[in-house]
């Protein structure tokens, strides 16, 4: 609305504004800002501000220019530029992850600058976890809701090479804490219990350790749910 008003007023106020060359100039400058502003809107909606857009713009422009000079196809050029932009995004995500992990530990690393007075990280004797910012919590919930990831986390009988982090004799596989997402409740044990609820009574110890029962190498004829899966240890719930 305001843009249309400004356009009309300017075309009357200045006899140069409504010329073809000037409009071409305006639209050419507008394209830069508009494309980046769309991405910046996504960042601002999620509660942050990206200060690296200028650098990413110039860097992707250089990458595209060099690949163009090397005679690559337009799609390859676009992919190279997008790769650069995605790398910037990965840096951002890794930074967020590190901060969230620091918040889970409750240490004073990155967490202090974003801890609110009532949050319970600063000055708390036990270093209770900082409540995550709403945007991060939403992202983590999205990840938790992703069925494949949730299934992989709750699967008591993983495929033989799927999650093979434990030692051969020790069937407990260490699940990294950040895979559980940021804490939604203050109490860590409560969170562990909630995770156990989500896994519907499957093997679960504490909050950090899953008890996973590796399958014996499946014979080609046996399917997954035909009852050939190894039974839990004979002692029943001895692992809990």
């Amino acid at each position, binding site marked *: 609305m*305001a*843009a249309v008003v*400004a*356009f009309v007023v*300017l075309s009357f*106020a*200045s006899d*140069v*504004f409504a010329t073809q060359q*000037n409009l071409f*100039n*305006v639209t050419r*400058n*507008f394209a*830069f*800002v*508009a494309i*980046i*502003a*769309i991405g*910046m*809107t*996504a960042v*601002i*909606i*999620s*509660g*942050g*501000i*990206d*200060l690296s*857009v*200028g650098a990413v*713009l110039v860097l992707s422009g250089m990458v595209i220019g060099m690949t163009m000079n090397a005679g690559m196809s337009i799609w390859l050029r676009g992919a190279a530029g997008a790769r650069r932009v995605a790398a910037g995004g990965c840096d951002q995500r890794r930074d967020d992850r590190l901060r969230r992990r620091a918040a889970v530990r409750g240490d004073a690393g990155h967490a202090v600058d974003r801890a609110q007075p009532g949050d319970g990280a600063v000055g708390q004797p036990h270093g209770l976890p900082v409540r995550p910012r*709403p*945007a991060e919590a939403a992202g983590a919930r999205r990840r938790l809701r992703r069925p494949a990831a949730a299934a992989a986390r709750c699967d008591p009988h993983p495929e033989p090479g799927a999650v093979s982090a434990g030692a051969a004799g020790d069937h407990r596989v260490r699940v990294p804490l950040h895979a559980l997402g940021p804490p939604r409740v203050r109490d860590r044990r409560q969170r562990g219990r909630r995770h156990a609820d989500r896994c519907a009574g499957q093997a679960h110890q504490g909050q950090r350790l899953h008890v996973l029962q590796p399958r014996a190498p499946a014979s080609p004829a046996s399917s997954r749910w035909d009852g050939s899966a190894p039974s839990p240890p004979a002692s029943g719930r001895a692992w809990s």
Partner: protein
Amino acid sequence: MELTVIAAAVIGGANLSGGIGTAFGAVVGAALIEVIRNSLTLLGISTFWQGTFVGSFIIVAVLFDRLRARGANE
């Protein structure tokens, strides 16, 4: 570039504290910013003042946003 882009997003209705904003609004904000920057050049104002104008746009847009939010609350 950052200042211009943030101004475009904010003029387009994005809330700097997060949660609100549309992509279409960002495009409209970018159009407004560019039209006004172009007109500043045409009217003979030094390009060094463009940052001042864009920054004041951000302030005015946030002010309008706050006023609107306050009106919605009361």
